[in-house]
């Protein structure tokens, strides 16, 4: 059972969280806070795994709460921000918040956030000092990307990306259900992604190998990458050796 604390100065907002959490039996509410000070006290007393935190509260903001709570030696709960303001998303991302829900949100969106939180909590419980794969510079590969798309903030785990296509100064990130246009370059994105999972197969495409069904030669002698969802991505000669190396491992 995962224990959660709700922090929001509005009664109706807390009520909505309670109602939505009823749909998720794995999470139990152990406390609520209507102000930042109250929230800090409740979290210190109950030591929850998960904290639903509003950014704007009457006395201090949500980030101050996180600052107060992150004292050495104590385990900070996983945090899901719930707010009407989109401008704090990058800051939330930087303090490793699990997700950033813009009000109003749907049960579906809420469920995906709590799902991620539960996975993360499980991981922490199994292996508190889990390391992440490093790239050649010794920096960690990104496991999530944060960006604004279609009036929303997304903390997108890279594992959900099926493939990425270049469109001039932009890249199109395709997940199972959606596509997002980001102002970014392929090279920069490629550097951020773990090469064990993401493979550049063409000057203008990167595929997530987890979603690759097969690589097939086409009639014209070129190869095509077929994804699990049926999409086909062209592969260029120059990049073919890379996928060969990967297949032979």
């Amino acid at each position, binding site marked *: 059972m995962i224990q959660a604390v709700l922090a929001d100065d509005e009664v109706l907002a807390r009520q909505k969280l309670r109602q939505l959490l009823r749909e998720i039996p794995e999470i139990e509410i152990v406390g609520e806070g209507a102000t930042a000070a109250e929230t800090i006290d409740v979290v210190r007393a109950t030591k929850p795994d998960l904290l639903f935190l509003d950014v704007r509260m009457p006395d201090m903001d949500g980030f101050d709460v996180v600052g107060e709570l992150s004292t050495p030696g104590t385990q900070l709960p996983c945090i899901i921000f719930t707010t009407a303001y989109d401008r704090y998303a*990058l800051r939330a991302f*930087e303090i490793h918040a699990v997700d950033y829900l813009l009000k*109003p949100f749907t049960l579906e969106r809420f469920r995906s956030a709590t799902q991620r939180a539960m996975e993360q909590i499980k991981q922490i419980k199994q292996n508190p000092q889990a390391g992440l794969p490093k790239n050649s510079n010794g920096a960690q590969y990104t496991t999530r990307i*944060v*960006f*604004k*798309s*279609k009036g929303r903030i997304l903390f997108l785990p890279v594992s959900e990306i099926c493939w990425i296509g270049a469109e001039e100064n*932009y890249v199109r990130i395709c997940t199972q259900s959606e596509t997002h*246009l980001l102002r970014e370059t392929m090279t920069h994105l490629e550097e951020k992604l773990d090469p064990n999972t993401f493979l550049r197969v063409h000057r203008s495409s990167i595929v997530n190998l987890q979603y690759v069904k097969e690589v097939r030669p086409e009639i014209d002698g070129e190869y095509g990458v077929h994804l699990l969802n049926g999409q086909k991505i062209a592969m260029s000669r120059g990049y073919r050796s890379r996928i060969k190396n990967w297949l032979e491992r």
Partner: protein
Amino acid sequence: MHPLVFISGATSLGLLFALQEWIHSRLWNSHLSLSLLMKAWGAQYFIWGVLCWVGWWTLRSHIYNADWKKLLWFFLPLSIFVSIFEEAIWVQLFPQLPMGKPPMPFLQRLSFQLDAELVDSLVIFWSAFFLFRSIGYYLRFREKERIAAQLQSQLVHAQMRALRMQLNPHFLFNTMNSISSLMRTDVPAADLMLEQLSRLLRITLHRGDAQFIPLSDEMEFIEMYLAMQDRRFSGRVRQQMSVDPSVHDALVPSMILQPIVENAYAHGLSRLSTNGLLSIEANSQGPELRLTVTNNGVGILPATPKNGNGVGLSNVRERLLMHYGGEHSFSMSQIDGDRVQIVMTLPLRFAESPIEQTTGYGA
């Protein structure tokens, strides 16, 4: 104006006169001392320069506004007084003049000079007076023009805002009505629609007052809008979008496509029970950006005030005209019987400053 402008201007004028008289005297074989001429003429005009500056400084607004009465009762006596005053100072400074005459007392010299030069002095006074007056007119004219230009741009801005606002409300209210209806039957769907509406509003708010936005932002908005329309028309309409990657960053007037898409739904697609098709294309053609919206339905309906046809579109036309003048085209045509196609071509422009980056990476 700085006093130096008056004094140096007048003094150099005086020196030029001195030079002229000197050359003149050389031609007639009489030899006047150049230095004395320079001193005398220079001093005379220097005094005028100072007087003009004082006049400008103290009487400027009276000079601008003087009517006939004031001219007659104030400036005419003033001109005579100033002229005599100027001559008096000058005569005091140069006791050796006029040359070739026996030494005379001050008043006699003054009367001699006035006899010779009072008319010249009056001419100088009135020239300065009318020069100042025309400068005044010019400044006022410039000010008026500036205010007019400012008003014009304010007006255009206000009109733009009004036009943009006109596009939103009924869409907003229709959506709220849909949400209200869903709340009774399908709460998750109502929730979803509310969330989508919030996302649309967030995008709109983010743009603020920006008149021009990158096409990719406009398309993002259109995608959201289409997602909501799709829900209302529950999959009866197939949507196709193709944007050439090279024009993602092209600047378009904010909210330029939405009214066209809204129009396509209101007057075409909503009348079909199956097989609706809406397609949006954007590409570049030389120096132009070409945007095409095609929908099937019932062809072009005659515009009547009753069905509201054309209000959204005439807004689009007006905004294009205000932004681009003659540098754009807008056409609506019927193709293959029942399809309506709207084609816009705009000058292809890109943002000068780089577009804000809001992507972050991390664990």
